[in-house]
């Protein structure tokens, strides 16, 4: 069985799939329980955690809350990419990149060498 953190991911996936339409705990419970048995309180706790962490916002509607994502998946992706790729940002996360991005001149020089090497090859 997947851990608790993965349930947060499942919940966010489903919230984002609704493209901004608000969702209740009951709505998500119905969807998720089609894939696996899950308790109402588990979904409720997960959504409450995501609200506290700032991923979801909510408005009271009668007895229940209606949840929406605070930003779209694309907006969060863009934010993470900024954090990962822009050097000198305020993040202190240690990321081991596969390769550093090259600037225009470096990239051009490398491509030139590559082109020459491939051209020289017979056939």
């Amino acid at each position, binding site marked *: 069985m997947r851990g608790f953190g993965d349930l947060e991911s499942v919940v966010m996936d489903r919230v984002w799939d609704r493209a901004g339409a608000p969702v209740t705990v009951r709505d998500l419970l119905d969807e998720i329980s089609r894939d696996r048995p899950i308790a109402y309180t588990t979904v409720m706790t997960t959504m409450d955690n995501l609200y506290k962490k700032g991923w979801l916002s909510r408005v009271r509607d009668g007895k229940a809350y209606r949840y929406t994502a605070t930003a779209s998946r694309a907006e969060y*992706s863009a934010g993470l*990419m900024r954090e990962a790729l822009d050097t000198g940002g305020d993040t202190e996360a240690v990321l*081991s990149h596969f390769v550093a991005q090259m600037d225009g001149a470096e990239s051009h020089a*490398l491509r030139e060498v590559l082109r020459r*090497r491939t051209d020289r090859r017979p056939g």
Partner: protein
Amino acid sequence: MTAALLWFGYAAAVAWFAPPVLVRLTRSGVDARLGLLAWLVAVATAVCAAILAVQALASSAAAGWSALAEVICQSVAGHACAPAVYQSALVDTGLSAAAVATGLALVLVAARCAGGVRRGRNGSRAHAAAARLVGRRLSSGAVGTRRAGEVRAAGEVGAVVLDSPRPAAYCVVGRPATIVLTSGTIALLGPGQLRAVIAHERAHLAGRHNTLILLTRALSQSVPGVPLFRGAAERVAVLAEMCADDRAARVSGRPALVTALLAMATGAAVPEEALGTAASAVAARVDRLLTVQRRITMVRYQMGLAAVIAVLVAVPGWLALVAG
């Protein structure tokens, strides 16, 4: 007092004289693992020697305190004070002041270092957690279904895909550690190249490279201006890349890794048969992977590095015996 000077002397010698030697021996990345070890041993012995120096200074100052108290007592009691007694009081006071000052400096550096490590770790964990929420799980189709074992392994580490056209691939420690690829990377690379990238990132995580980079970076930021720490922060990161390259090359083959490097660095797809070299950091890694090291060169570098490590360990060992 002598012990303190010896330890300070050793720490300073390693901090200023080891970097040029280590840079020379590790620049080309022949035996990157041994090179990485040599840098870490140099940093560790320098830090330990500095701590021992402060400790030795403090204990010799503490030994002098009783003498100092006696001198003051005698002075107050009105005994005649010979110049020798004044001198002794001066030395003891100076020693105590030095012990307090270096002790405080050490505590300050340790606190700054710990703060840097904590911020880096928290930042990494937050990034990993966010990436796991925002990213989609890497589908096994992207890396080819031919070798299911590797795909399963990639899933275990937790490779996620972020929607972004910019090619990027990195790993970040957290609970759990996460490998992040962009959709641009998936589009750019073939299955073999993608496997090479994942193998490279997995090697980082297995070798705890992010932790080593975090520690050396925090140390270099806490004690600026020390060549050893500045060099270690820079070179450990590069050598970690080379270690990961070696492992990835063993897992997925050199052509896949080299062409993946080129494609990711230039942002343009590179077929596996196109190989080249150029003068840049990436090209140095590429060149190294392409160059079959002559066995004699390998052995020469290994012996050089082993000698450096032996000196770095033997000298403080000898100092410990002499200084007690």
